[in-house]
C-alpha cells in the first residue's frame, strides 16, 4: 500500500472505526452509517420544522415574538422542537462532511462511481442555504447579521435592479414581502435538497437511507437530551436602527459569514465557484482505472435475475429474451455503471468451476478476470501451498490482505462463486479456504460482505453447498489497519486444519480442469 494522503486517511478512519465497532458493534457503527444518518437527520429537521410552523408567525413584525413565545412559554415541546431543528441541522453538516471525506478516503467516488459524488456536491450548498434561510426567519440580531451580510454579498453580483441590502437599511424600509420570500425559500430549498438527496442515491442498489433502528433511536434520544440540556439560544430582537456587533454564530451552518466579512466579495464568489468545480472534478483528478464492464453470455444465462439483485451499482437490467431460447428474460449490463466488481459473476448459477467439458464460460463474466482464469488462479495458488493445514485465501483487494503465496486477490470477495470454495476443497487444492473481505461494518463494494455471508449461510442464492465442511471454511472481515489480526486468524486456521483428518470426499483434479492459464493479478506471486 502506498502511503499517500488517501491511504493515511483510510487507515485513520479504519482505526477510529475499530474503536467504534467495539463501542457500538459493527452493525451500529455510526461512521459506517453516515449516509443513512444524513437522511435520518433530514427527516428530524423536516418533522420538527413542520411542527414549528404551527407556532411560528410568518410576519416580519411578529416572527421574533412568536419564537420568543414558543421558546419560553412552550419550551417543553415547541422549544425542544426548535432546538432539535437546529442541532439536527448542525449535526447534518458534520455528518455530511465526514461522509464526504470518508467516501474520498475509501475511494468510492471515482471511475464509474462518479455519479453519487457529483450529485453530492450541490447537496452541500443546499444544506447551507437551508440553514441560512432558517436563521433569517428568527429575526433576532443574528438574523439581522445574516440578512445584511448575505444581501451585501448578493448585491456584489450586480444582478438585482435595486440593491437588496436596501431592505435592511432602516426600520421603515423593511419589507414584509421580502420576509415572506424568505419563508417561502426556507420551505422550497429543503424540498429541493430532498430531491437532490434522492437523485444522489439513484445509481446504487438498495441504498441505505435508514440507519439501524437502535442507532437511529440513540441519535434521536441524544438530540432530545441535548435540546433539553442546552436549549437553542435566541438573540435580541432585530433592530435596523442598530448594527449587530457581536453575534452568537452557528459555526456549522454560518461559518462562512466571518470569511465573507473579511474578504472582498469577488474572492468569496471565486472561492465558492472554485471549490465547487474542484470538488466536482475530483473523480477525474485522477480517474480510477477499472476493468472492462461485465459481459453477458446468453448461452449460459437463463434470466434468473440473481445478478440483477446482487449488483450493488444498479448496472444490470432484466430485459425480454432476444435469442429465441425458451426463457422470458435475459440481462443487459450498462457498461457506464459497471465498476467490474465481479459480484454478478459470483451470483450467477452458471458460474461453477466444476464443469469439465469445453471452455469454462458462465452467464455473466468479467472480461479482464473471467471465471476460467479465476479457477486457473486457484490451481496455480494451490501449487504454492505445502505441508499440513494448507490455506488458500480468497482476499478482497480493499481489506487487510496483502499479496502472498496461496492468496488470490479479488476486486470483491463476493466475486468468488460459492462453488469455487467447494471446488478448492473437494479437489484438494487446499485443506481449507479463507475468505478475507473488507471490514464487516462497511464493504468497499457496498454489498459484497452481506452477499458472501448470506450465500455461505445458505440464505441467499447461490448457496454454499451443504456438503462443504464448514470447519474448512473461514471468513475474516478486516479493514486495512488489521493486517496482524488477519494473519493471526489465518495461521490459527491453518493450525486447526492441520489437526483435522484428511478430507474424505476428495476427488482430485482432472487433467482437463487444469488447462487454463492464470491471470496476472491472481495466483501465486
Amino acid at each position: 500500500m502506498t502511503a499517500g494522503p488517501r491511504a493515511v486517511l483510510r487507515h485513520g478512519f479504519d482505526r477510529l472505526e475499530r474503536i467504534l465497532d467495539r463501542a457500538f458493534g459493527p452493525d451500529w457503527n455510526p461512521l459506517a452509517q453516515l449516509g443513512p444518518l444524513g437522511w435520518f437527520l433530514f427527516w428530524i429537521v423536516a418533522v420538527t420544522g413542520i411542527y414549528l410552523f404551527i407556532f411560528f408567525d410568518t410576519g416580519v413584525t411578529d416572527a421574533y415574538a412568536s419564537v420568543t413565545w414558543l421558546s419560553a412559554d412552550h419550551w417543553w415541546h415547541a422549544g425542544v422542537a426548535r432546538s432539535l431543528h437546529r442541532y439536527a441541522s448542525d449535526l447534518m453538516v458534520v455528518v455530511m462532511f465526514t461522509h464526504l471525506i470518508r467516501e474520498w478516503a475509501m475511494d468510492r467516488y471515482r471511475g464509474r462511481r462518479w455519479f453519487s459524488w457529483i450529485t453530492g456536491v450541490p447537496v452541500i450548498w443546499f444544506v447551507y442555504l437551508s440553514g441560512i434561510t432558517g436563521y433569517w426567519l428568527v429575526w433576532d440580531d443574528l438574523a439581522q447579521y445574516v440578512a445584511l451580510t448575505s444581501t451585501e454579498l448578493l448585491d456584489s453580483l450586480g444582478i438585482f435592479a435595486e440593491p437588496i441590502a436596501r431592505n435592511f437599511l432602516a426600520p421603515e424600509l423593511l419589507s414584509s414581502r421580502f420576509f415572506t420570500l424568505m419563508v417561502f425559500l426556507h420551505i422550497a430549498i429543503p424540498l429541493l435538497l430532498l430531491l437532490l438527496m434522492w437523485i444522489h442515491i439513484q445509481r446504487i442498489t438498495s441504498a441505505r437511507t435508514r440507519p439501524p433502528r437502535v442507532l437511529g433511536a440513540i441519535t434521536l434520544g441524544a438530540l432530545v437530551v441535548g435540546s433539553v440540556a442546552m436549549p437553542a439560544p435566541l438573540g435580541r430582537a432585530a433592530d435596523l436602527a442598530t448594527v449587530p456587533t457581536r453575534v452568537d454564530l452557528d459555526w456549522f451552518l454560518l461559518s462562512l459569514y466571518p470569511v465573507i466579512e473579511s474578504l472582498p466579495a469577488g474572492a468569496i464568489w471565486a472561492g465558492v465557484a472554485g471549490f465547487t468545480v474542484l470538488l466536482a472534478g475530483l473523480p477525474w483528478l485522477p480517474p480510477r482505472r477499472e476493468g472492462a464492464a461485465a459481459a453477458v453470455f446468453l448461452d449460459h444465462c437463463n434470466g434468473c435475475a440473481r445478478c440483477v439483485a446482487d449488483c450493488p451499482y444498479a448496472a444490470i437490467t432484466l430485459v425480454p429474451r432476444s435469442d429465441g431460447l425458451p426463457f422470458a428474460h435475459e440481462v443487459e449490463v450498462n457498461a457506464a455503471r459497471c465498476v467490474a466488481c465481479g459480484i454478478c459473476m459470483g451470483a450467477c448459477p452458471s458460474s461453477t468451476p466444476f464443469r469439465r467439458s469445453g471452455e469454462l464460460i458462465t452467464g455473466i463474466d468479467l472480461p479482464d478476470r473471467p471465471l476460467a482464469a479465476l479457477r486457473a488462479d486457484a490451481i496455480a495458488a494451490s501449487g504454492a501451498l505445502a505441508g499440513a493445514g494448507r490455506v488458500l485465501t480468497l482476499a478482497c483487494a480493499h481489506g487487510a490482505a496483502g499479496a502472498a503465496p496461496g492468496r488470490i486477490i479479488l476486486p470483491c470477495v463476493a466475486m468468488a462463486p460459492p462453488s469455487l470454495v467447494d471446488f478448492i476443497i473437494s479437489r484438494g487444492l487446499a485443506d481449507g479456504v479463507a475468505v478475507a473481505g473488507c471490514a464487516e461494518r462497511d464493504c468497499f463494494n457496498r454489498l459484497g460482505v452481506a452477499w458472501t455471508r448470506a450465500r455461505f449461510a445458505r440464505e441467499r442464492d447461490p448457496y454454499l453447498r451443504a456438503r462443504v465442511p464448514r470447519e474448512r471454511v473461514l471468513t475474516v472481515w478486516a479493514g486495512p489497519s488489521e493486517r496482524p489480526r488477519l494473519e493471526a486468524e489465518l495461521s490459527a486456521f491453518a493450525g486447526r486444519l492441520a489437526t483435522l483428518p484428511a478430507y474424505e470426499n476428495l476427488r482430485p483434479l482432472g487433467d482437463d480442469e487444469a488447462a487454463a492459464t492464470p491471470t496476472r493479478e491472481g495466483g501465486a506471486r
Partner: protein
Amino acid sequence: MTGPRASWLGRLPQIALGGVLILALVLGVATLSARPAWQSLAPGIALVRLSLTHSGARNCRDRTADELAKLPKNMRSPQVCERRRAPVRVEMDVDGHSVLAADLPPSGLAGSGPSRIYHRIELPAGSYRLDLRLSDDPATQGFEYVAAFDVDLHPAESLAVDFDAASGGFFLH
C-alpha cells in the same frame, strides 16, 4: 439465533455506551452552534450607510422644424435624447475629509437605467459633520444637490443616508 427483540436487549451495554458517545457529540455540536460569539464590528463603532438610486441626465437636443415635419403627427415630440444616461457624481465628506467620491455609471445594458450605490462607512462613535454632494448632469457646473448633517453616532448605531430628488435631495433615516 434469538429474535430481534432479544438481540438488542442483549446489547444494552453497547446502547448505553453508544448513547453516551453520541450525546457527547450532540453536546459538542450544541456548544459550537452558538459559541464562541463572533465580533462582527468592533465595540464602539457605528455604521453609516449611503444608499441611493438616481437617474443621470440624458443628452437631448431640440428637433428642427424639418425633422418634426417628417414625423407622423402623433410622434412629434420636440426633443430627441440619447438612450444612455450620464453618470451620477456623488461625494461625501466626514468632518471635511473625503470618504467617497465616485462617478456612478448608469445601469442597464444600454446605460439607460438609474445609477446606484450602496456604501458602508464604519466610524467610531461620536459627533461628525457629514457633507454630501450629488450632480446628475455633467453639463452643469458644480452640484445640483448639496446637504450637510450634524450627527451624533452611538456605538452600534446604524445611520442610513438616502436620497430622493423629488423631496429635495439627501435625507437621513
